[in-house]
């Protein structure tokens, strides 16, 4: 069989084994770990692209790990949501490219291999989480990427990073426990861990109470991972104090795992005839709406650039949940597309901000005045990404928000449409404020005057992401068409 046939297991195996090899291989030459990590993530990307090609050719497909047919073995399943692994691998690849010059400045040289190992293991965990069709396997890979994420946050210098990592770890552990508990309940009810199998057997379960409880525990658990208001409290600290490439990875990719977890949960439970998902979905809508406004307002008053971007993640997660909660075909496909688009945009934002902060040594927005003259390309990329995150058409941020807003109107919720618009406006307000500060105000800080444009490795990653966050908007229709079949099982519930 060709590599593509085993690709589903390989996208997990390659990055994790690659990551495990790094500390052993590069003890003596820490900086060379970069190349190895890059190569293995490029390989992962290549495999995931071959998976997508197969998906387009023959539709969703499964891989039985070890050759054991489900539900006995662990089935890996690739559908159009799983296709997100290509985007996530791509972002990881770019983050690695960016890290080349950034990480040696913030991490002691002997620990550099550890950083790359953690990034690769994180990628492997994310991929596993996305392609698995098994509940316990989902939990295991959730732990893989969570533990590596906690550690990545802690790699930054300074006591805040440690505290933020602990906060993240504590909430993350609680959420993992909830998820595990829910999986236990489902197993006790159905005797299987395979998602599709469990979905079919839940209806026959004797009592609805454990099922409802499992649904609740899964939702809350994934809500923490997704940082949906009011369980987002860990996010601003963690994402603001982590090293910039880590912030990019966390905000763009890791948070999305929680969202995808919720989607998988809703899909699993949507077959359950006697359990109504509507109350849960309206709860998600309202939490999402509050998250949009709260995140935007909180971002508006931030003076720290990275903290502001972290709050913008809270806002965008809110958007995605509004879309999922509405659940109509329009809104849900918008939410699905926004998962991808926001990943690209947020990676561009954090990397560009990281380059500005790294080159100037300043992180307060007011100190960055006039930096656009010194670092035009990085600042331009930040500007483009800010407009994209505000959802200015025709950038990538627009597609999802438009679909979500439209879905709100179609299902007779004009107020939500208002929330979508007001949230976008608030984001635009601080976006314009930052652009104004960078380009149109005279420098205030002496370090700004002496700053120079970021090195080529950083610029390459930033510019590519910023360009994508514009161009993906132009490809809105094809992307919506791509995710539409995958989102259908969710929309049936609405």
């Amino acid at each position: 069989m060709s590599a593509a046939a085993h690709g589903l297991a390989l996208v997990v195996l390659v990055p994790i084994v690659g990551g495990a090899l790094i500390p052993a291989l590069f003890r003596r030459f820490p900086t060379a770990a970069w190349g190895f990590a890059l190569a293995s993530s490029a390989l992962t990307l290549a495999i995931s692209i071959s998976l997508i090609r197969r998906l387009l050719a023959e539709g969703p497909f499964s891989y039985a790990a070890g050759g054991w047919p489900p539900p006995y073995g662990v089935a890996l399943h690739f559908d159009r949501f799983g296709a997100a692994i290509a985007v996530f691998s791509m972002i990881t690849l770019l983050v690695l490219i960016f890290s080349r010059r950034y990480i040696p400045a913030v991490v002691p040289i002997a620990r550099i291999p550890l950083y790359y190992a953690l990034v690769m293991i994180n990628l492997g965990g994310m991929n596993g989480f996305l392609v698995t069709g098994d509940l316990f396997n989902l939990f295991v890979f959730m732990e893989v990427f969570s533990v590596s994420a906690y550690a990545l946050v802690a790699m930054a210098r300074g006591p805040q990073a440690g505290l933020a990592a602990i906060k993240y770890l504590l909430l993350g552990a609680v959420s993992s426990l909830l998820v595990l508990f829910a999986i236990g309940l489902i197993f006790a009810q159905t005797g299987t861990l395979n998602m599709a199998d469990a979905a079919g057997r839940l209806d026959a379960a004797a009592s609805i109470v454990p099922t409802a409880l499992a649904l609740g525990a899964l939702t809350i658990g994934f809500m923490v991972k997704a940082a949906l208001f009011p369980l987002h409290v860990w996010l601003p600290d963690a994402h603001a104090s982590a090293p910039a490439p880590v912030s990019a990875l966390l905000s763009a990719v890791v948070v999305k795992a929680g969202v995808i977890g919720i989607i998988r949960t809703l899909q699993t439970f949507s077959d359950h005839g006697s359990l109504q998902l509507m109350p849960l979905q309206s709860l998600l809508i309202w939490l999402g709406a509050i998250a949009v406004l709260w995140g935007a307002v909180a971002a508006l008053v931030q003076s720290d650039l990275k903290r502001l971007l972290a709050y913008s993640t809270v806002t965008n997660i809110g958007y995605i949940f509004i879309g999922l909660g509405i659940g109509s075909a329009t809104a849900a496909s918008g939410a699905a597309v926004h998962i991808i688009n926001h990943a690209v945009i947020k990676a561009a934002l954090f990397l560009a901000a990281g380059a500005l902060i790294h080159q100037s040594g300043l992180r307060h927005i007011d100190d960055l005045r006039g930096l656009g003259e010194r670092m035009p390309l990085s600042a331009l990329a930040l500007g483009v990404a800010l407009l994209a995150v505000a959802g200015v058409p025709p950038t990538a941020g627009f597609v999802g928000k438009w679909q979500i807003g439209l879905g709100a109107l179609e299902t007779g919720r004009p107020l939500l449409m208002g929330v979508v618009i007001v949230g976008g406006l608030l984001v635009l307000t601080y976006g314009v404020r930052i652009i104004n500060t960078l380009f149109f105000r005279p420098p205030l800080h002496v370090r700004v005057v002496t700053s120079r444009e970021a090195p080529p490795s950083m610029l390459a990653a930033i510019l590519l992401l910023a360009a994508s966050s514009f161009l993906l908007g132009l490809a809105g229709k094809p992307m919506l068409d791509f995710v539409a079949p995958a989102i259908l099982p969710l929309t049936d519930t609405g």
Partner: protein
Amino acid sequence: MRKFLALVLIAALGAVLIAAVVNLPEPGTTDSPVHTHVSAGYIKGGHEAGGADNLVTAVLLNYRAIDTFGEVTVIFTALIAVLAATSLAGPTERSGTQNIDLKTTRVPVSPVVSFVVRLMAPFIATFALFVMLKGHELPGGGFQGGVVLGAMLILLALFSGRTDKTDDEELPPGLRNWIRAAGPLVFGALGLTGLVFSGWLFSLPDHPFWREMVMIGLELGIGIGGAAVLVGLFRALREG
């Protein structure tokens, strides 16, 4: 007030948990779904197909090998995490007055305890290896054996009276990182052998002899890797 809130929260959570458990199918009865669906299949085919007398091992290493792969990765990642985080805090940032610097303070150990520990160490190590190697037939396996081995090594480090030494002594540093990564790496190797022997990633060979050999290799990898990780955690915490 906060205490009261916490109590209410815990009470509510407890009530919910109890409600769930009470409504679950009766455990232990033969007709509960847990026993009739997938588990029944394991019991029926486990011995033949799983290749291990111990069904737990069969499930861990065969049916759900990819889960086990994830688990050993988590363990390995935990060590990397601690190494990455502790080194950065630095020894100067400690606070408090009761700190004991384990590197320089010699723990006052009774000679009797020290002697007994050193006397027992070879036996514990043998037991650990036994648990690892016979894991596919008897209760036990790589995880358990590895933890026992790790506990023994930590005990030795604590009581051998050589607490002032750094960790460069037991293993050459070049080898250490390989052994710590043994868990994920043996599964990487399993991926390849599975592909070669049976055409599936994460599958064991069909031939009984090779199957047993691969299983033992996996158990050893999990066990020794796990032990190395635990010792590494201990050292990182002690020195970081």
